[in-house]
């Protein structure tokens, strides 16, 4: 593992509080994920790839923005790995890079309709931008 990948791995483990070594590869997190079909990399792959230091593909995947933070994988993991927290950490490392916001304020007006609750907008900003 390169030094850069090792540093990234340690940062992800530190800010997520997740220990990927606890994973026993059962795949229940991905099986229960409501966004499974929309994802290139699935929750179990986030866990394995972070453990192996194969992190660059995760930083560049749209899967980061398909996770609904519904905590289904957190609730149902038999080993308490909490994959959603790892996905969140990767997403933050990605969006904290300069100019890497996934949603721009200028994009919002086109997305509005009469009924869209404010909650949707603030949540999307919290998840897609830094």
């Amino acid at each position, binding site marked *: 593992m390169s030094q850069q990948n090792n540093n990234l791995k340690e940062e992800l483990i*530190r*800010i*997520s*509080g997740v220990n990927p070594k606890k994973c026993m590869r059962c795949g229940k997190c991905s099986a229960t994920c*409501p*966004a499974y079909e*929309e994802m290139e990399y699935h929750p179990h792959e986030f866990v394995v790839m972070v453990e192996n230091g194969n992190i660059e593909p995760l930083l560049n995947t749209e899967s980061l*923005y*398909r996770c*609904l*933070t*519904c*905590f*289904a994988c*957190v*609730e149902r993991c038999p080993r308490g790995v*909490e994959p*959603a*927290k790892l996905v*969140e*950490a990767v997403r*933050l490392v990605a969006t904290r890079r300069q100019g890497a916001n996934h*949603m721009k304020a200028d994009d919002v007006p086109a*997305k509005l309709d009469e*009924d*869209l*609750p*404010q*909650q*949707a*907008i*603030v*949540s*999307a900003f*919290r*998840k*897609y931008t830094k």
Partner: protein
Amino acid sequence: MKVSYFPGCTLKTKAVKLDEYARRCAEVLGVTLEEIENWQCCGGVFTTSKDEVATKLSSVRVLKAAQDKEQVLVTVCSACHNVVKQTNHQVQTDKEFADKVNRYMAAEGGYDGTTKVYHYLELLRDVVGFDKIKEKVVKPLNGEKIAVYYGCLLLRPGTVMKMDDPENPKIIEDLIRALGGEPVIYNKRNECCGGYVTMENPAFAEKKSQSITENAKSFGASRMITACPLCKYNLEKHEEELPVVYFTELLAEALGVKEDADESAE
């Protein structure tokens, strides 16, 4: 009894009725919701990362405001509840996070994590009691088949939210029974509606939401209820047969205060 109340952004705008019904019903049940002054938006979703501090301060300030008044803190919106409760839990369990929070909070006095947070449903169950609610019903639901939609935010993570069994909840079903309705138990009542992804991938949110409403209809539901404005938006956006309403609306109907609440919300 008086409690501190955090309505949140959406209950002041698109979900005014969710708020109005909640206040009216609480009064009928002997509880006054005292809105916290100068509250700020919770941010809609909790950020699980340990190094996210500033984004959680609005929740900490709300918790501290309730602590200063020596009251429990009540929320109605599922999202606010999830964010405030998870933030409280992080203050209680992550010392490094609590230290950082209290450095931000030094000028206004610290916060130690002792505020009790109730969702409105927990207030009904644990403080008022469903038996007492049953006594106050003036227009029972006459066995109407109601599908309860929990979604994700009220229940998960179960170790933090502690409202009910996250895989087999019954709190809202018990409320429906107290109001004279018949809860419909269907498979997808605690699966995600698509949430904020509706902002950038509405087709995906539509697919998630439709599978939930179709599932509920197949079990004979005539109405669906939720506590979350975003769930309601997603669920009803493409749904023509099954009305989706707030749980407080059903409560207001049964307690006979819906029309008054509708008038003042207009």
